[in-house]
Structure formats: C-alpha cells, structure tokens
C-alpha cells in the first residue's frame, strides 16, 4: 500500500520562541497538515495565533483574509467574524492559549503547491477547558491571495513567545 501520510518535519521547542518556521517544503504532496500539540505561552496570554506562508520567504503583505466560527468560555453565545486584507492568517482568534491552557490545532493546506489558484487553509483549533475567558473551539477558513506554491510556513503568537515543549509537526498527504 502506498504511504500517503508522511511526517515531513517536527519542531519541539527546547526554549521559548517567538515563532516556528518550516521551510524548503517539498512540493511532492497533494496537501499539507500542520499539527500543534501541547502548545502553550511562555508567559501571559496570547491574543491569537497567526501564520504566514510563502515561496522562499513568507509573504508579509496584506494578502490574507479569514472567516471564523467558534465558541469560547467567556460567553455561551457562539461567534463568527471575518477580516480582510490582513498581513497574516490565523489558526486561533478568540480562543487563546495561556501558560497553563494548551492549544491543539490541525491546519490543512489544500493543493498547496499549485501555481494557478489562490490557496485555502482550513484550521480546526481547540484550547483546553479551564480558562474563564479563552478556552474553546474555533474553525477558520483562510485565504492567501497568491498563486505561488507554498514552500514556507511560519506560525507565531500575536505577541509573546511559545513555551518550551510546544510541538509542531508538518505532514504531507498524497492523493495516490
């Protein structure tokens, strides 16, 4: 049976870090999945987890947009929101990791290596229950308005650093 779900790289932080970057990603897969595991803040409370993608280097221009649906502990009312022309995409927005509440997330980069279409990135994120305001669930659809193939992915908290022990794994999925 062909191997269709392969680990490309794993980063487990040995010290606090402001961002994690995967570069020189092979274009030989159909889709990519970036998995967050036990991701916490080194100090304070994060306000979002952002990401940027690009070819050779990440795109820092206002070429991202995203729409969110989710729920968090601060309210029993679910929420939905959208931002256009932003300089990053997002895997978390209203939920926030803390020093004790870990986040787990699966980011799906669809058809990431084609050079014809803009790129869609779907994220499903969860922050551990326990925080009075920021625990919850979110699903976000992101658009990167570029036809360039993605071979670089950078994830970073909106402010502050990821904690030691936060783990990020990039997988490649082949359709055949």
């Amino acid at each position, binding site marked *: 049976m062909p191997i269709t*779900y*392969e680990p490309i790289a794993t980063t487990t932080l040995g010290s606090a870090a402001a961002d994690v970057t995967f570069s020189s990603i092979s274009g030989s897969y159909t889709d990519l999945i970036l998995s967050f595991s*036990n991701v916490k803040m080194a100090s304070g409370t994060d306000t979002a987890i952002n990401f940027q993608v690009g070819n050779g280097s990440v795109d820092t221009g206002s070429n991202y947009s995203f729409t969110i649906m989710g*729920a968090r502990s601060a309210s029993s009312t679910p929420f939905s929101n959208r931002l256009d022309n932003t300089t990053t995409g997002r895997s978390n927005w209203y939920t926030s990791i803390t020093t004790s509440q870990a986040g787990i997330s699966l980011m799906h980069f669809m058809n990431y290596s084609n050079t014809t279409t803009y790129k869609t990135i779907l994220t499903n994120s969860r922050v551990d229950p326990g925080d009075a305001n920021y625990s*919850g669930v979110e699903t976000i659809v992101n658009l990167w308005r570029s036809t360039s193939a993605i071979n670089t992915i950078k994830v970073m908290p909106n402010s502050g650093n990821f904690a030691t022990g936060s783990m990020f794994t990039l*997988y490649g999925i082949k359709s055949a």
Partner: protein
Amino acid sequence: MANTYEAIATVTVGSGGAADITFSSIPATYTDLIVKLSGRSTTSDADMYIAFNSNTSNYSRRVLRGNGSAASSTSGSDRYVGTIDSSGETASTFGNWEIYVPNYAGSNNKSYSIDSVEENNATQAFQYFIAGLWSNTSAITSLKLEFIAAGTFAQYSTATLYGIKNS
C-alpha cells in the same frame, strides 16, 4: 520513509449491540491517536462519554453545536464527547465522529479535539466541535466509548483506532 498513519485496531459491533466500544493495550509507540467512528445507538440515549484508562474523573469540555438553524455552546466538567444517531432518527443512518488525541503517551495533561455529525433525514441535524481535557498525566493505554444512561451501540457500528508517528 516510515509509515506513520497506521490502523491499530477496529471494532465492529455485531448483532445484539454492544454496551461500549473499547480499545485496550494501546502501544505507546505513536505520537498521536485518532479514532474514527461510524455509530448509532439502539435507544433514545445517544450521548457518548469517554474514559481513558478506565478513569472517569477530571474531565472537562467546551462544545460548539449547530442544529441546522442555530448554533449554541455549552461547557461542563464531564466526559461528554458528543451525540450520535439515536433510535429516533432516520433508520439505518449512522453518525460520524472523530477524536484526535495528540501526545497521548506524554506526561502532560491530555487535550483532545472532536468533530462529529449526527446524521438525520430531517430539518434538524447536529454538528459538533468539542475541545476536551483529561487532567491526568498518565500515558493513555485504553480508550472507552459508552452511553452512561441506557444506550448501546447498534449493530454495524464501527470504530477504528489509528496511530500517527511524527518520525
């Protein structure tokens, strides 16, 4: 390159149903676990609960639920992990459910996430996103799904446990 998404075990419920679906003696050789379930309850009780290592304490969860016309959110300090199809819903229709448990063999508390749908040929059907936490640092060696009221898994319910390696 290593094969990293492996089926560890599959349970298929036979005639007469089953009170629970349990995966035991889970090896610690993977990085993450995924369970995919196609399931239905034989009764009106279709609220599923989870137990890792047969432990029923120190769970919490946040749920986002859509019913086809509105969304709502709930939280609780319990083992609830979503609702699948009950006997009151379209016959021969099974709900789909997936749990992702990263770093299940590590020494941290165990976070898990769930996506599921409760299929129904009617105006109202349900979709769930759930964030869960088992505040226990033990490595997960077994995983049990059950109904704590009166439900049993119907015949043809199937669940497969997958292990994912990151190297």
